[in-house]
Protein backbone atom coordinates (compact mmCIF):
# COMPACT_ATOMS: atom_id res chain seq x y z
CA UNK A 1 0.00 0.00 0.00
CA UNK A 2 2.55 2.51 1.15
CA UNK A 3 4.72 1.71 -1.82
CA UNK A 4 1.88 2.10 -4.24
CA UNK A 5 1.26 5.66 -3.11
CA UNK A 6 4.60 6.71 -4.41
CA UNK A 7 4.18 5.56 -7.99
CA UNK A 8 4.15 8.49 -10.41
CA UNK A 9 0.71 7.51 -11.75
CA UNK A 10 -0.85 7.66 -8.32
CA UNK A 11 0.86 10.88 -7.50
CA UNK A 12 -0.68 12.36 -10.61
CA UNK A 13 -4.12 11.00 -9.62
CA UNK A 14 -3.75 12.67 -6.26
CA UNK A 15 -2.79 15.97 -7.75
CA UNK A 16 -5.67 15.80 -10.16
CA UNK A 17 -8.13 15.16 -7.41
CA UNK A 18 -6.69 17.97 -5.39
CA UNK A 19 -6.95 20.30 -8.36
CA UNK A 20 -10.61 19.47 -9.04
CA UNK A 21 -11.43 19.84 -5.38
CA UNK A 22 -10.03 23.33 -5.36
CA UNK A 23 -11.62 24.22 -8.69
CA UNK A 24 -15.11 23.30 -7.52
CA UNK A 25 -14.64 25.03 -4.19
CA UNK A 26 -13.67 28.12 -6.13
CA UNK A 27 -16.65 27.88 -8.51
CA UNK A 28 -19.17 27.41 -5.72
CA UNK A 29 -17.64 30.24 -3.73
CA UNK A 30 -17.83 32.52 -6.78
CA UNK A 31 -21.50 31.68 -7.26
CA UNK A 32 -22.27 32.53 -3.64
CA UNK A 33 -20.22 35.70 -3.81
CA UNK A 34 -21.90 36.70 -7.08
CA UNK A 35 -25.38 36.70 -5.56
CA UNK A 36 -24.17 39.07 -2.86
CA UNK A 37 -22.53 41.30 -5.47
CA UNK A 38 -25.75 41.37 -7.50
CA UNK A 39 -27.82 42.30 -4.46
CA UNK A 40 -25.49 45.08 -3.41
CA UNK A 41 -25.15 46.20 -7.02
CA UNK A 42 -28.89 46.49 -7.53
CA UNK A 43 -29.31 48.47 -4.36
CA UNK A 44 -26.40 50.75 -5.20
CA UNK A 45 -27.86 51.40 -8.66
CA UNK A 46 -31.32 52.17 -7.28
CA UNK A 47 -29.96 54.37 -4.52
CA UNK A 48 -27.48 56.23 -6.74
CA UNK A 49 -30.11 57.06 -9.36
CA UNK A 50 -32.89 57.58 -6.84
CA UNK A 51 -30.93 60.00 -4.67
CA UNK A 52 -30.32 62.30 -7.64
CA UNK A 53 -34.03 63.10 -7.64
CA UNK A 54 -33.70 64.84 -4.29
CA UNK A 55 -31.73 67.62 -5.93
CA UNK A 56 -35.05 68.87 -7.31
CA UNK A 57 -37.66 67.30 -5.06
CA UNK A 58 -37.73 67.56 -1.28
CA UNK A 59 -37.74 64.42 0.84
CA UNK A 60 -40.92 65.69 2.45
CA UNK A 61 -42.72 66.08 -0.88
CA UNK A 62 -41.69 62.63 -2.05
CA UNK A 63 -42.78 60.65 1.00
CA UNK A 64 -45.51 62.75 2.57
CA UNK A 65 -47.57 64.30 -0.24
CA UNK A 66 -49.96 62.37 -2.39
CA UNK A 67 -50.02 64.05 -5.80
CA UNK A 68 -48.02 62.18 -8.42
CA UNK A 69 -47.95 64.06 -11.71
CA UNK A 70 -44.47 64.23 -13.24
CA UNK A 71 -45.79 65.42 -16.62
CA UNK A 72 -48.13 68.08 -15.30
CA UNK A 73 -49.26 71.09 -17.32
CA UNK A 74 -47.57 73.54 -14.96
CA UNK A 75 -45.44 72.39 -12.05
CA UNK A 76 -44.74 68.66 -11.83
CA UNK A 77 -45.31 66.96 -8.50
CA UNK A 78 -43.65 63.85 -7.12
CA UNK A 79 -45.58 62.66 -4.08
CA UNK A 80 -45.81 58.91 -3.60
CA UNK A 81 -48.37 59.08 -0.75
CA UNK A 82 -51.27 57.71 -2.78
CA UNK A 83 -49.15 54.86 -4.14
CA UNK A 84 -47.79 53.97 -0.71
CA UNK A 85 -51.37 53.92 0.56
CA UNK A 86 -52.46 51.82 -2.43
CA UNK A 87 -49.63 49.33 -1.99
CA UNK A 88 -50.27 49.04 1.75
CA UNK A 89 -54.03 48.65 1.33
CA UNK A 90 -53.76 45.93 -1.29
CA UNK A 91 -51.03 44.07 0.63
CA UNK A 92 -52.72 44.19 4.04
CA UNK A 93 -56.05 43.10 2.55
CA UNK A 94 -54.33 40.27 0.71
CA UNK A 95 -52.78 39.11 3.99
CA UNK A 96 -56.14 39.19 5.74
CA UNK A 97 -57.28 36.65 3.18
CA UNK A 98 -54.12 34.61 2.60
CA UNK A 99 -52.82 34.29 6.16
CA UNK A 100 -55.79 32.50 7.80
CA UNK A 101 -56.38 30.34 4.73
CA UNK A 102 -52.66 29.54 4.46
CA UNK A 103 -52.29 28.59 8.12
CA UNK A 104 -55.44 26.47 8.00
CA UNK A 105 -54.14 24.71 4.91
CA UNK A 106 -50.75 24.15 6.53
CA UNK A 107 -52.40 22.76 9.67
CA UNK A 108 -54.50 20.44 7.53
CA UNK A 109 -51.47 19.20 5.64
CA UNK A 110 -49.30 18.60 8.68
CA UNK A 111 -51.85 17.45 11.28
CA UNK A 112 -54.89 16.02 9.55
CA UNK A 113 -54.23 14.89 6.00
CA UNK A 114 -53.19 11.33 5.25
CA UNK A 115 -49.76 11.01 3.62
CA UNK A 116 -51.48 10.20 0.32
CA UNK A 117 -53.73 13.25 0.48
CA UNK A 118 -50.75 15.38 1.39
CA UNK A 119 -48.89 13.98 -1.61
CA UNK A 120 -51.65 15.31 -3.84
CA UNK A 121 -52.51 18.65 -2.22
CA UNK A 122 -49.05 19.99 -1.53
CA UNK A 123 -47.77 19.79 -5.12
CA UNK A 124 -50.96 21.48 -6.30
CA UNK A 125 -50.40 24.39 -3.93
CA UNK A 126 -46.79 24.62 -5.02
CA UNK A 127 -47.95 24.69 -8.64
CA UNK A 128 -50.00 27.80 -7.82
CA UNK A 129 -46.69 29.64 -7.46
CA UNK A 130 -45.86 28.75 -11.04
CA UNK A 131 -48.81 30.52 -12.68
CA UNK A 132 -47.47 33.54 -14.58
CA UNK A 133 -48.62 36.81 -13.02
CA UNK A 134 -50.06 38.00 -16.34
CA UNK A 135 -52.42 35.04 -16.30
CA UNK A 136 -53.50 35.80 -12.74
CA UNK A 137 -54.12 39.42 -13.76
CA UNK A 138 -56.18 38.25 -16.70
CA UNK A 139 -58.33 36.15 -14.39
CA UNK A 140 -58.77 39.30 -12.30
CA UNK A 141 -60.13 41.25 -15.26
CA UNK A 142 -62.33 38.53 -16.71
CA UNK A 143 -63.57 36.59 -13.68
CA UNK A 144 -63.00 38.27 -10.32
CA UNK A 145 -63.67 41.86 -11.46
CA UNK A 146 -67.15 41.20 -12.88
CA UNK A 147 -67.93 38.94 -9.90
CA UNK A 148 -67.02 41.68 -7.39
CA UNK A 149 -69.00 44.28 -9.36
CA UNK A 150 -72.10 42.07 -9.24
CA UNK A 151 -71.72 41.01 -5.61
CA UNK A 152 -71.14 44.46 -4.17
CA UNK A 153 -73.31 46.36 -6.68
CA UNK A 154 -70.36 48.35 -7.98
CA UNK A 155 -70.28 49.70 -11.51
CA UNK A 156 -66.93 48.00 -12.16
CA UNK A 157 -64.49 45.53 -10.64
CA UNK A 158 -61.27 47.56 -10.95
CA UNK A 159 -60.77 47.82 -7.20
CA UNK A 160 -58.14 47.31 -4.51
CA UNK A 161 -60.14 44.27 -3.38
CA UNK A 162 -59.70 42.61 -6.77
CA UNK A 163 -55.93 43.04 -6.51
CA UNK A 164 -55.96 41.81 -2.91
CA UNK A 165 -57.75 38.58 -3.83
CA UNK A 166 -55.32 37.90 -6.66
CA UNK A 167 -52.29 38.65 -4.48
CA UNK A 168 -53.70 36.35 -1.80
CA UNK A 169 -53.77 33.55 -4.34
CA UNK A 170 -50.19 34.31 -5.35
CA UNK A 171 -48.87 34.58 -1.78
CA UNK A 172 -50.59 31.40 -0.63
CA UNK A 173 -47.90 28.90 -1.74
CA UNK A 174 -45.07 30.58 0.18
CA UNK A 175 -47.21 30.92 3.29
CA UNK A 176 -48.38 27.30 3.21
CA UNK A 177 -44.95 25.76 2.58
CA UNK A 178 -43.15 27.74 5.29
CA UNK A 179 -45.95 27.31 7.85
CA UNK A 180 -46.23 23.59 7.19
CA UNK A 181 -42.50 23.11 7.64
CA UNK A 182 -42.74 24.99 10.93
CA UNK A 183 -45.60 22.82 12.15
CA UNK A 184 -43.84 19.62 11.14
CA UNK A 185 -40.72 20.70 13.03
CA UNK A 186 -42.64 20.74 16.32
CA UNK A 187 -41.47 17.61 18.20
CA UNK A 188 -43.92 14.74 18.43
CA UNK A 189 -43.51 14.65 22.18
CA UNK A 190 -45.37 17.99 22.52
CA UNK A 191 -48.45 16.61 20.85
CA UNK A 192 -48.29 13.29 22.69
CA UNK A 193 -48.06 15.07 26.02
CA UNK A 194 -51.15 17.05 25.10
CA UNK A 195 -53.08 13.95 24.04
CA UNK A 196 -52.01 12.24 27.27
CA UNK A 197 -53.63 15.07 29.20
CA UNK A 198 -56.87 14.32 27.42
CA UNK A 199 -57.02 17.09 24.80
CA UNK A 200 -58.43 16.41 21.37
CA UNK A 201 -56.79 17.22 18.03
CA UNK A 202 -58.22 20.74 17.78
CA UNK A 203 -57.14 21.79 21.26
CA UNK A 204 -53.72 20.28 20.66
CA UNK A 205 -53.35 22.22 17.43
CA UNK A 206 -54.51 25.57 18.79
CA UNK A 207 -53.00 25.40 22.28
CA UNK A 208 -49.82 23.42 21.71
CA UNK A 209 -48.63 22.94 18.14
CA UNK A 210 -49.38 26.38 16.69
CA UNK A 211 -47.84 28.29 19.63
CA UNK A 212 -44.79 26.02 19.51
CA UNK A 213 -44.38 26.80 15.81
CA UNK A 214 -45.12 30.49 16.48
CA UNK A 215 -42.13 32.24 15.01
CA UNK A 216 -42.21 29.98 11.95
CA UNK A 217 -45.85 30.88 11.40
CA UNK A 218 -45.06 34.58 11.70
CA UNK A 219 -42.16 34.13 9.28
CA UNK A 220 -44.58 32.57 6.79
CA UNK A 221 -46.84 35.60 7.03
CA UNK A 222 -44.00 38.07 6.65
CA UNK A 223 -42.69 36.21 3.63
CA UNK A 224 -46.17 36.37 2.11
CA UNK A 225 -46.20 40.13 2.63
CA UNK A 226 -42.86 40.40 0.88
CA UNK A 227 -44.26 38.46 -2.04
CA UNK A 228 -47.38 40.64 -2.27
CA UNK A 229 -45.61 44.01 -1.96
CA UNK A 230 -43.39 43.39 -4.97
CA UNK A 231 -45.94 41.91 -7.36
CA UNK A 232 -46.43 44.12 -10.42
CA UNK A 233 -48.25 42.77 -13.42
CA UNK A 234 -51.26 41.36 -11.58
CA UNK A 235 -52.13 44.55 -9.74
CA UNK A 236 -51.35 46.66 -12.78
CA UNK A 237 -54.01 44.78 -14.71
CA UNK A 238 -56.67 44.44 -12.03
CA UNK A 239 -56.75 47.48 -9.76
CA UNK A 240 -57.62 50.27 -12.20
CA UNK A 241 -54.51 52.40 -11.58
CA UNK A 242 -56.22 55.55 -10.32
CA UNK A 243 -53.88 58.02 -8.62
CA UNK A 244 -56.11 58.90 -5.68
CA UNK A 245 -55.65 58.05 -2.03
CA UNK A 246 -58.14 55.17 -1.60
CA UNK A 247 -61.00 55.55 0.88
CA UNK A 248 -61.98 51.89 0.85
CA UNK A 249 -61.27 48.53 -0.72
CA UNK A 250 -63.76 49.40 -3.45
CA UNK A 251 -61.64 52.25 -4.84
CA UNK A 252 -59.24 51.89 -7.74
CA UNK A 253 -55.60 52.13 -6.62
CA UNK A 254 -52.23 52.37 -8.28
CA UNK A 255 -49.35 50.64 -6.54
CA UNK A 256 -45.68 51.64 -6.52
CA UNK A 257 -44.76 48.71 -8.74
CA UNK A 258 -47.44 49.58 -11.29
CA UNK A 259 -46.20 53.17 -11.46
CA UNK A 260 -42.68 52.04 -12.26
CA UNK A 261 -43.84 49.58 -14.88
CA UNK A 262 -46.19 52.06 -16.57
CA UNK A 263 -43.86 55.04 -16.67
CA UNK A 264 -40.46 53.48 -17.30
CA UNK A 265 -41.21 53.01 -21.00
CA UNK A 266 -41.89 56.65 -21.77
CA UNK A 267 -39.57 58.50 -19.46
CA UNK A 268 -36.67 60.40 -21.03
CA UNK A 269 -33.32 59.27 -19.67
CA UNK A 270 -31.67 61.40 -17.00
CA UNK A 271 -34.65 63.57 -16.04
CA UNK A 272 -36.08 64.12 -12.57
CA UNK A 273 -38.98 61.88 -13.55
CA UNK A 274 -36.51 59.13 -14.51
CA UNK A 275 -34.67 59.41 -11.20
CA UNK A 276 -37.92 59.50 -9.26
CA UNK A 277 -38.85 56.06 -10.63
CA UNK A 278 -35.57 54.74 -9.25
CA UNK A 279 -36.38 56.38 -5.92
CA UNK A 280 -39.69 54.50 -5.87
CA UNK A 281 -37.75 51.33 -6.68
CA UNK A 282 -35.30 51.93 -3.84
CA UNK A 283 -38.16 52.56 -1.42
CA UNK A 284 -39.82 49.34 -2.51
CA UNK A 285 -36.52 47.47 -2.25
CA UNK A 286 -36.02 48.65 1.32
CA UNK A 287 -39.59 47.72 2.27
CA UNK A 288 -39.36 44.19 0.91
CA UNK A 289 -35.80 43.77 2.26
CA UNK A 290 -37.06 44.67 5.75
CA UNK A 291 -39.85 42.14 5.45
CA UNK A 292 -37.52 39.41 4.24
CA UNK A 293 -34.92 40.11 6.94
CA UNK A 294 -37.65 39.94 9.59
CA UNK A 295 -38.83 36.62 8.16
CA UNK A 296 -35.25 35.31 8.11
CA UNK A 297 -34.67 36.41 11.69
CA UNK A 298 -37.89 34.84 12.95
CA UNK A 299 -37.30 31.63 11.02
CA UNK A 300 -33.76 31.37 12.43
CA UNK A 301 -35.02 31.94 15.96
CA UNK A 302 -37.60 29.24 15.47
CA UNK A 303 -35.05 26.80 14.07
CA UNK A 304 -32.98 27.43 17.18
CA UNK A 305 -35.87 26.58 19.44
CA UNK A 306 -36.84 23.40 17.62
Amino acid at each position, binding site marked *: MGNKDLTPANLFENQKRHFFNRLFKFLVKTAAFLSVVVLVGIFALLAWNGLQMFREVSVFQFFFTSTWNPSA*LNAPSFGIG*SMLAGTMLVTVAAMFIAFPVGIALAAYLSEVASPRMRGVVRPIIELLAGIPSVVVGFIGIVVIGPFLAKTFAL*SNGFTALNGAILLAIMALPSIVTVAEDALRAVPRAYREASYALGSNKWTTLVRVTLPAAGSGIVAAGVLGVGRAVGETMTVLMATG*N*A*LEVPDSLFDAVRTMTATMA*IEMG*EVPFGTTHYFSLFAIGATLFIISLLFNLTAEYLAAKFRHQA
Partner: protein
Amino acid sequence: MMRSLVLLFLLSAIVACRPVKTIEQIQIKGSDSEVAVVMALAESFMHHEHRISVSVKGGGSGSGIAALLNGKTDIANSSRDMSDKEHEMAKARSIRPVPVVFAEDVLVFILHPSLKIKALTLDQIAGIYRGEIQNWKEVGGPDRMISLYGRQSNSGTYVYLREKVLKAEYSPKVKGMNGTAQIVEAVKQDVGGIGYVSLGYVQHNNKPTAGISVVSLGLGEGVSPLDRAAVTGGLYPLKRPLYHFLNGPARGALASFLRFERSEKGQAIIRESGYIPVEGPLAIAPGADVVPKAQPVHGK
Protein backbone atom coordinates in the same frame (compact mmCIF):
# COMPACT_ATOMS: atom_id res chain seq x y z
CA MET B 1 -22.08 10.37 -31.02
CA MET B 2 -19.97 13.47 -30.55
CA ARG B 3 -19.09 13.53 -34.22
CA SER B 4 -22.67 13.27 -35.39
CA LEU B 5 -23.59 16.10 -33.02
CA VAL B 6 -20.90 18.29 -34.48
CA LEU B 7 -22.05 17.39 -37.95
CA LEU B 8 -25.61 18.26 -37.10
CA PHE B 9 -24.50 21.57 -35.66
CA LEU B 10 -22.49 22.43 -38.77
CA LEU B 11 -25.37 21.45 -41.01
CA SER B 12 -27.82 23.66 -39.16
CA ALA B 13 -25.32 26.50 -39.27
CA ILE B 14 -25.10 26.14 -43.02
CA VAL B 15 -28.88 26.09 -43.39
CA ALA B 16 -29.19 29.16 -41.21
CA CYS B 17 -26.63 31.07 -43.27
CA ARG B 18 -28.11 30.17 -46.62
CA PRO B 19 -28.65 33.41 -48.48
CA VAL B 20 -32.33 34.26 -48.35
CA LYS B 21 -34.01 37.03 -50.27
CA THR B 22 -32.85 40.24 -48.64
CA ILE B 23 -35.79 41.73 -46.81
CA GLU B 24 -35.83 45.32 -45.69
CA GLN B 25 -37.30 45.93 -42.26
CA ILE B 26 -39.39 48.89 -41.19
CA GLN B 27 -40.07 49.31 -37.47
CA ILE B 28 -43.07 51.40 -36.47
CA LYS B 29 -43.99 52.11 -32.85
CA GLY B 30 -46.18 54.48 -30.87
CA SER B 31 -49.71 55.82 -30.72
CA ASP B 32 -52.45 53.44 -29.74
CA SER B 33 -54.93 55.52 -31.75
CA GLU B 34 -52.91 54.84 -34.89
CA VAL B 35 -51.86 51.25 -34.37
CA ALA B 36 -54.89 49.58 -35.99
CA VAL B 37 -54.98 51.73 -39.10
CA VAL B 38 -51.21 51.65 -39.63
CA MET B 39 -51.26 47.89 -39.18
CA ALA B 40 -53.96 47.60 -41.87
CA LEU B 41 -51.87 49.85 -44.14
CA ALA B 42 -48.74 47.80 -43.46
CA GLU B 43 -50.45 44.51 -44.23
CA SER B 44 -51.77 45.72 -47.55
CA PHE B 45 -48.39 47.29 -48.34
CA MET B 46 -46.52 44.04 -47.64
CA HIS B 47 -48.94 42.31 -49.97
CA HIS B 48 -47.67 44.53 -52.78
CA GLU B 49 -44.03 44.77 -51.74
CA HIS B 50 -42.67 41.35 -50.88
CA ARG B 51 -39.17 42.63 -50.21
CA ILE B 52 -40.20 44.89 -47.36
CA SER B 53 -41.34 43.75 -43.94
CA VAL B 54 -43.18 46.22 -41.71
CA SER B 55 -43.75 45.68 -37.99
CA VAL B 56 -46.21 47.90 -36.14
CA LYS B 57 -46.40 48.21 -32.35
CA GLY B 58 -48.61 50.29 -30.04
CA GLY B 59 -47.66 51.48 -26.58
CA GLY B 60 -48.62 55.15 -26.75
CA SER B 61 -47.32 58.23 -28.53
CA GLY B 62 -44.86 59.01 -25.74
CA SER B 63 -43.32 55.54 -26.02
CA GLY B 64 -43.05 55.90 -29.81
CA ILE B 65 -41.27 59.24 -29.60
CA ALA B 66 -38.98 57.92 -26.85
CA ALA B 67 -38.13 54.96 -29.10
CA LEU B 68 -37.31 57.33 -31.99
CA LEU B 69 -35.07 59.40 -29.70
CA ASN B 70 -33.35 56.21 -28.53
CA GLY B 71 -32.85 55.06 -32.13
CA LYS B 72 -35.05 52.01 -31.58
CA THR B 73 -37.64 52.64 -34.30
CA ASP B 74 -37.79 53.95 -37.88
CA ILE B 75 -41.15 55.64 -37.52
CA ALA B 76 -42.71 56.98 -34.33
CA ASN B 77 -46.49 57.13 -34.51
CA SER B 78 -47.88 60.01 -32.50
CA SER B 79 -51.32 61.49 -32.07
CA ARG B 80 -49.77 64.67 -30.67
CA ASP B 81 -47.01 67.00 -31.79
CA MET B 82 -43.59 66.63 -30.21
CA SER B 83 -43.08 68.76 -27.11
CA ASP B 84 -40.32 71.37 -26.79
CA LYS B 85 -38.57 69.10 -24.33
CA GLU B 86 -38.58 66.24 -26.81
CA HIS B 87 -37.24 68.54 -29.54
CA GLU B 88 -34.40 69.58 -27.22
CA MET B 89 -33.56 65.97 -26.51
CA ALA B 90 -33.62 65.11 -30.20
CA LYS B 91 -31.15 67.91 -30.82
CA ALA B 92 -28.87 66.67 -28.06
CA ARG B 93 -28.84 63.21 -29.61
CA SER B 94 -28.47 64.55 -33.17
CA ILE B 95 -31.77 63.10 -34.30
CA ARG B 96 -33.73 65.18 -36.80
CA PRO B 97 -37.44 64.45 -36.35
CA VAL B 98 -39.44 64.97 -39.54
CA PRO B 99 -43.22 65.03 -39.09
CA VAL B 100 -45.54 63.50 -41.69
CA VAL B 101 -49.31 63.79 -41.26
CA PHE B 102 -50.86 60.76 -42.92
CA ALA B 103 -54.46 61.01 -41.68
CA GLU B 104 -56.75 62.93 -39.36
CA ASP B 105 -58.69 61.79 -36.35
CA VAL B 106 -61.18 63.25 -33.90
CA LEU B 107 -61.41 62.58 -30.19
CA VAL B 108 -64.54 60.61 -29.32
CA PHE B 109 -66.23 60.08 -25.95
CA ILE B 110 -68.01 56.81 -25.30
CA LEU B 111 -70.56 55.93 -22.59
CA HIS B 112 -72.37 52.89 -21.32
CA PRO B 113 -75.60 52.72 -23.38
CA SER B 114 -77.82 52.47 -20.29
CA LEU B 115 -76.98 56.09 -19.40
CA LYS B 116 -79.15 57.28 -22.31
CA ILE B 117 -77.17 60.49 -22.72
CA LYS B 118 -76.95 61.63 -26.35
CA ALA B 119 -74.97 64.84 -26.20
CA LEU B 120 -72.61 66.70 -23.87
CA THR B 121 -70.93 70.07 -24.18
CA LEU B 122 -67.16 70.41 -24.03
CA ASP B 123 -67.56 72.27 -20.73
CA GLN B 124 -69.47 69.33 -19.27
CA ILE B 125 -66.80 66.91 -20.52
CA ALA B 126 -64.11 69.07 -18.95
CA GLY B 127 -66.05 69.18 -15.66
CA ILE B 128 -66.47 65.42 -15.68
CA TYR B 129 -62.80 64.66 -16.29
CA ARG B 130 -61.57 67.33 -13.88
CA GLY B 131 -63.69 65.60 -11.24
CA GLU B 132 -66.05 68.56 -10.62
CA ILE B 133 -69.09 66.70 -11.98
CA GLN B 134 -69.34 63.37 -10.18
CA ASN B 135 -72.89 62.14 -10.80
CA TRP B 136 -74.61 61.58 -14.13
CA LYS B 137 -77.76 63.38 -12.92
CA GLU B 138 -75.85 66.67 -13.07
CA VAL B 139 -75.69 66.38 -16.86
CA GLY B 140 -79.17 65.00 -17.51
CA GLY B 141 -78.57 61.32 -16.85
CA PRO B 142 -79.73 58.91 -14.15
CA ASP B 143 -78.67 59.21 -10.49
CA ARG B 144 -75.46 57.21 -10.83
CA MET B 145 -71.82 57.87 -9.98
CA ILE B 146 -69.56 58.66 -12.91
CA SER B 147 -66.81 56.11 -13.44
CA LEU B 148 -63.91 57.67 -15.35
CA TYR B 149 -61.68 55.76 -17.75
CA GLY B 150 -58.60 57.19 -19.40
CA ARG B 151 -55.10 56.41 -20.60
CA GLN B 152 -51.69 56.64 -19.00
CA SER B 153 -49.58 59.77 -19.37
CA ASN B 154 -47.61 58.19 -22.24
CA SER B 155 -50.72 58.49 -24.42
CA GLY B 156 -50.93 61.28 -26.98
CA THR B 157 -54.69 61.29 -26.55
CA TYR B 158 -54.29 61.83 -22.78
CA VAL B 159 -52.09 64.86 -23.44
CA TYR B 160 -54.37 66.20 -26.19
CA LEU B 161 -57.56 66.06 -24.09
CA ARG B 162 -55.85 67.69 -21.12
CA GLU B 163 -54.50 70.51 -23.26
CA LYS B 164 -57.50 71.22 -25.48
CA VAL B 165 -60.51 70.50 -23.28
CA LEU B 166 -59.63 70.24 -19.59
CA LYS B 167 -57.03 72.99 -19.55
CA ALA B 168 -56.22 71.62 -16.07
CA GLU B 169 -55.20 68.36 -14.47
CA TYR B 170 -57.27 65.18 -14.57
CA SER B 171 -59.21 64.02 -11.52
CA PRO B 172 -57.11 61.50 -9.57
CA LYS B 173 -60.08 59.14 -9.83
CA VAL B 174 -59.49 58.47 -13.54
CA LYS B 175 -58.64 54.81 -13.98
CA GLY B 176 -55.53 54.57 -16.14
CA MET B 177 -56.03 51.80 -18.69
CA ASN B 178 -53.18 50.33 -20.70
CA GLY B 179 -54.66 50.81 -24.13
CA THR B 180 -57.63 52.16 -26.02
CA ALA B 181 -59.11 48.70 -26.55
CA GLN B 182 -59.13 48.21 -22.79
CA ILE B 183 -61.10 51.45 -22.35
CA VAL B 184 -63.75 50.26 -24.81
CA GLU B 185 -64.05 46.89 -23.04
CA ALA B 186 -64.27 48.52 -19.60
CA VAL B 187 -66.95 51.04 -20.65
CA LYS B 188 -69.03 48.24 -22.19
CA GLN B 189 -69.23 46.59 -18.76
CA ASP B 190 -69.48 49.65 -16.50
CA VAL B 191 -72.98 51.13 -16.14
CA GLY B 192 -71.51 54.48 -15.08
CA GLY B 193 -68.57 54.44 -17.45
CA ILE B 194 -67.17 57.14 -19.74
CA GLY B 195 -64.00 56.89 -21.79
CA TYR B 196 -62.14 58.76 -24.53
CA VAL B 197 -60.96 57.00 -27.65
CA SER B 198 -59.92 57.59 -31.22
CA LEU B 199 -62.39 57.55 -34.13
CA GLY B 200 -61.21 54.17 -35.40
CA TYR B 201 -62.37 52.47 -32.20
CA VAL B 202 -66.06 53.44 -32.48
CA GLN B 203 -66.66 52.37 -36.06
CA HIS B 204 -65.34 49.96 -38.60
CA ASN B 205 -66.37 49.77 -42.23
CA ASN B 206 -68.93 52.48 -41.49
CA LYS B 207 -70.62 50.38 -38.80
CA PRO B 208 -70.63 51.70 -35.23
CA THR B 209 -69.11 49.48 -32.53
CA ALA B 210 -71.73 47.58 -30.53
CA GLY B 211 -72.16 47.85 -26.76
CA ILE B 212 -71.18 51.50 -26.31
CA SER B 213 -72.90 54.78 -27.08
CA VAL B 214 -71.01 57.57 -28.76
CA VAL B 215 -71.43 61.10 -27.39
CA SER B 216 -72.39 63.95 -29.69
CA LEU B 217 -70.69 67.21 -28.79
CA GLY B 218 -72.35 70.60 -28.44
CA LEU B 219 -75.63 72.12 -27.26
CA GLY B 220 -78.97 70.39 -27.87
CA GLU B 221 -78.63 67.51 -30.30
CA GLY B 222 -74.93 68.17 -30.76
CA VAL B 223 -72.77 66.91 -33.61
CA SER B 224 -72.02 63.20 -33.80
CA PRO B 225 -68.49 62.03 -34.58
CA LEU B 226 -70.11 59.28 -36.66
CA ASP B 227 -71.42 61.96 -39.05
CA ARG B 228 -68.76 61.73 -41.73
CA ALA B 229 -69.50 65.09 -43.36
CA ALA B 230 -69.52 66.94 -40.04
CA VAL B 231 -66.21 65.41 -39.06
CA THR B 232 -64.50 66.06 -42.40
CA GLY B 233 -65.90 69.58 -42.55
CA GLY B 234 -64.64 70.39 -39.07
CA LEU B 235 -68.13 70.89 -37.58
CA TYR B 236 -67.31 68.31 -34.92
CA PRO B 237 -64.61 69.82 -32.72
CA LEU B 238 -61.40 68.13 -31.52
CA LYS B 239 -60.04 67.24 -34.94
CA ARG B 240 -56.38 66.36 -34.72
CA PRO B 241 -53.64 65.23 -37.10
CA LEU B 242 -52.11 61.76 -36.85
CA TYR B 243 -48.34 61.95 -37.23
CA HIS B 244 -45.49 59.76 -38.26
CA PHE B 245 -42.16 61.09 -37.02
CA LEU B 246 -39.11 59.95 -38.98
CA ASN B 247 -35.45 60.54 -38.31
CA GLY B 248 -34.50 62.69 -41.28
CA PRO B 249 -36.09 62.53 -44.75
CA ALA B 250 -37.44 59.17 -45.85
CA ARG B 251 -35.41 56.98 -48.17
CA GLY B 252 -35.86 53.61 -49.81
CA ALA B 253 -38.38 51.36 -48.12
CA LEU B 254 -39.63 54.12 -45.82
CA ALA B 255 -40.31 56.36 -48.80
CA SER B 256 -42.30 53.71 -50.63
CA PHE B 257 -44.36 53.02 -47.52
CA LEU B 258 -45.24 56.71 -47.17
CA ARG B 259 -46.02 56.86 -50.87
CA PHE B 260 -48.34 53.87 -50.46
CA GLU B 261 -50.20 55.63 -47.64
CA ARG B 262 -50.95 58.52 -49.97
CA SER B 263 -51.99 56.25 -52.83
CA GLU B 264 -55.63 55.65 -53.63
CA LYS B 265 -55.47 52.18 -52.09
CA GLY B 266 -53.89 53.58 -48.92
CA GLN B 267 -56.49 56.32 -48.63
CA ALA B 268 -59.26 53.76 -49.00
CA ILE B 269 -57.83 51.75 -46.10
CA ILE B 270 -57.61 54.90 -43.96
CA ARG B 271 -61.26 55.67 -44.75
CA GLU B 272 -62.37 52.10 -44.00
CA SER B 273 -60.58 52.19 -40.65
CA GLY B 274 -62.70 55.20 -39.75
CA TYR B 275 -60.13 57.99 -40.19
CA ILE B 276 -59.93 60.94 -42.55
CA PRO B 277 -57.36 60.70 -45.34
CA VAL B 278 -55.18 63.74 -45.89
CA GLU B 279 -55.39 65.35 -49.32
CA GLY B 280 -52.51 66.58 -51.39
CA PRO B 281 -49.33 64.95 -52.59
CA LEU B 282 -46.33 64.14 -50.46
CA ALA B 283 -43.46 66.25 -51.68
CA ILE B 284 -41.63 63.35 -53.26
CA ALA B 285 -38.44 64.13 -55.09
CA PRO B 286 -37.61 62.01 -58.13
CA GLY B 287 -35.45 59.00 -57.29
CA ALA B 288 -35.10 57.23 -54.01
CA ASP B 289 -34.72 60.24 -51.76
CA VAL B 290 -37.98 61.54 -50.50
CA VAL B 291 -38.41 64.65 -48.47
CA PRO B 292 -41.76 64.48 -46.74
CA LYS B 293 -43.22 67.82 -45.85
CA ALA B 294 -45.41 68.41 -42.84
CA GLN B 295 -49.03 69.04 -43.68
CA PRO B 296 -50.68 72.12 -42.23
CA VAL B 297 -51.55 71.19 -38.69
CA HIS B 298 -55.12 71.72 -37.60
CA GLY B 299 -55.98 73.24 -34.28
CA LYS B 300 -52.39 73.53 -33.19
